[in-house]
């Protein structure tokens, strides 16, 4: 009956989203009067999960599952859910979790709600709040099936502490045939990704050309942030597509989003709205971004950003 949560790790270490979904699973389990079981793939030390509400960890260690595969991961999670007789299964909103979740829903005959931002308002009927219309609205949804699958939005519920200790045991599932084989992975190493970043520094067409991104990268460097851009910037080839954020690009749900030379078109805002604090730097006081931001500077990016870098360096030096 325990709530099952898929806690993702990278190179054996848990991601922040893993601790967030564990915290969410704990909240659901408390509401239902049950415990939390986490499933991990090739993770190292799992004791940290206990600090976020996990009672038991099922450790899958298998060479065939070394690299992510949506179908086999979904199938293994389904086996664990069946073993635990779980009625609720929780995953994150990472690209990998979004990939496997619908397959898992079919494996488990589970109704599925994605982009969930709060603990259930009721567990019978099982009712959750999710974002819809790309963050322009929320939708209260009930899941009517016996087994329920919930994908939790990033940085919405938050990481919660709870002092328990998690027992760990090995779980040896059967591994299904896979039909999608990874040939190569092209990933910039050592760079913070937009998905994992606490802070995102984003540049728009107001920066005039790709040669001016030096200061954007430097600002991101000082803050330990990821870099992003508006859609025209990637369409023009100034920056790679992977940096395009917004309704048709990547979603951003960071703690801090700094928009520089971005007008704040509705499609841009929709994709970054889930960020907690938004800062805009723009020469035009009428730019729509000022209506969506928490803090703003009306000014020329080419003057403001170098000053901001300098001040932040001084601030960091004091810390």
């Amino acid at each position, binding site marked *: 009956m325990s709530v099952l949560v898929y806690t993702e790790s990278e190179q054996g270490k848990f991601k922040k989203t893993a601790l967030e979904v564990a915290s969410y699973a704990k909240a659901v389990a408390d509401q239902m009067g049950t415990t939390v079981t986490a499933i991990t793939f090739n993770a190292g030390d799992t004791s940290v999960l206990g600090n976020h509400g996990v009672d038991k960890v099922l450790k899958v260690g298998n060479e065939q599952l070394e690299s992510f595969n*949506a179908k086999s991961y979904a199938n293994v999670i389904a086996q664990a859910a069946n073993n635990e007789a779980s009625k609720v299964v929780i995953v994150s909103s990472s*690209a*990998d979790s*979004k*990939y*496997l*979740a*619908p*397959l898992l*829903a*079919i494996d488990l005959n*589970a*109704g599925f709600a*994605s982009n969930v931002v709060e603990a259930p308002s009721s567990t019978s009927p099982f009712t959750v*709040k999710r*974002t*819809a*219309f*790309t*963050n322009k*609205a*929320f*939708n*209260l*949804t*009930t899941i*009517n099936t016996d087994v329920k699958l919930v994908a939790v939005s990033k940085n919405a519920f938050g990481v919660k502490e709870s002092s328990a200790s998690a027992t760990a045991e090995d779980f040896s599932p059967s591994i299904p045939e896979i*039909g*999608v084989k*990874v*040939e*190569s*992975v*092209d990933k*910039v190493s050592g*760079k913070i990704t937009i998905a*994992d970043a606490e802070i995102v520094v984003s540049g728009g067409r107001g920066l005039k050309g790709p040669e001016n991104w030096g200061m954007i990268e430097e600002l991101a460097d000082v*803050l330990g942030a990821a870099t992003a851009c508006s*859609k025209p910037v990637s*369409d023009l080839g100034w920056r790679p*597509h*992977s940096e395009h954020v917004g309704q*048709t690009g990547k979603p951003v749900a960071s*703690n801090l989003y700094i928009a520089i030379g971005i007008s704040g078109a509705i499609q841009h805002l*929709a994709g970054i709205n889930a960020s907690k*604090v938004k800062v*805009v730097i723009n020469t035009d006081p009428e730019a729509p971004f*000022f*209506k969506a*931001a*928490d*803090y*703003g*500077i009306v*000014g*020329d990016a080419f003057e*403001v950003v170098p*000053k901001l870098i300098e*001040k*932040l360096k001084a601030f960091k030096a004091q810390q």
Partner: protein
Amino acid sequence: MKILVCISHVPDTTSKINFTEGDTKFDTNGVQFVINPNDEFGLTRAMWFKEKQGASVHVVNVGGPETEPTLRKALAIGADGAIRVNTAATDGFLVAKQLAKVVQDGGYDLVIAGRESIDYNGGMVPGMLAGLLNANFVNNCISLEVEGTNATASREIDGGKETVSTSLPLVIGGQKGLVEESDLRIPNMRGIMMARQKPLNVIEPVDANSETSSVKFEKPAPRGAVKLVDADNVDELVNLLHIEAKVI
């Protein structure tokens, strides 16, 4: 190769989002509907397969008669035929069930869907469809090549991309990258005229239940006004972010 492109009929990205009937229904008043952007990238890639590899391309939507102009637009862009499954798209599972039947009956080799629709953002239909069909599945697909029954695709991952090899039958959840923005086609007069002659078959749904139901909608709370900081006083911004917002 027989290709089926799933077309979601969604409000234009600039639409005002409002609700009616006690906040239980999306207010379509004055809203312009379009092909879901992720699906449009997929449709355009399908046209490439048609023109370069002789594939046939059908488009499908699960929805009421109001979605037909969107299907006609897909026909005007170049699809050979359209199918509408005549039922309200009440949840992702129900839609996937209907699509699975269409795929099985039509013997499609490749199904191109969008990674998510921009209205409900469920991101579940393509994966559920692949699960129901036991077909291969690539999500967040940003490139796709097919040779015979073998396919090579890449998908966007957090922080980069991954290239995979797979085979038909295949379902993809597509997005920008499958083709570039500049490759998208605006239907011309000839396309629009031809679309009128092309078949748009309306079929009745198979028995299936929704697994989830929408209770109601809410709009985000109105936000406070922006705090402006003088361009000559950047220190102030650093302070606010540290002390007030606590994000640095």
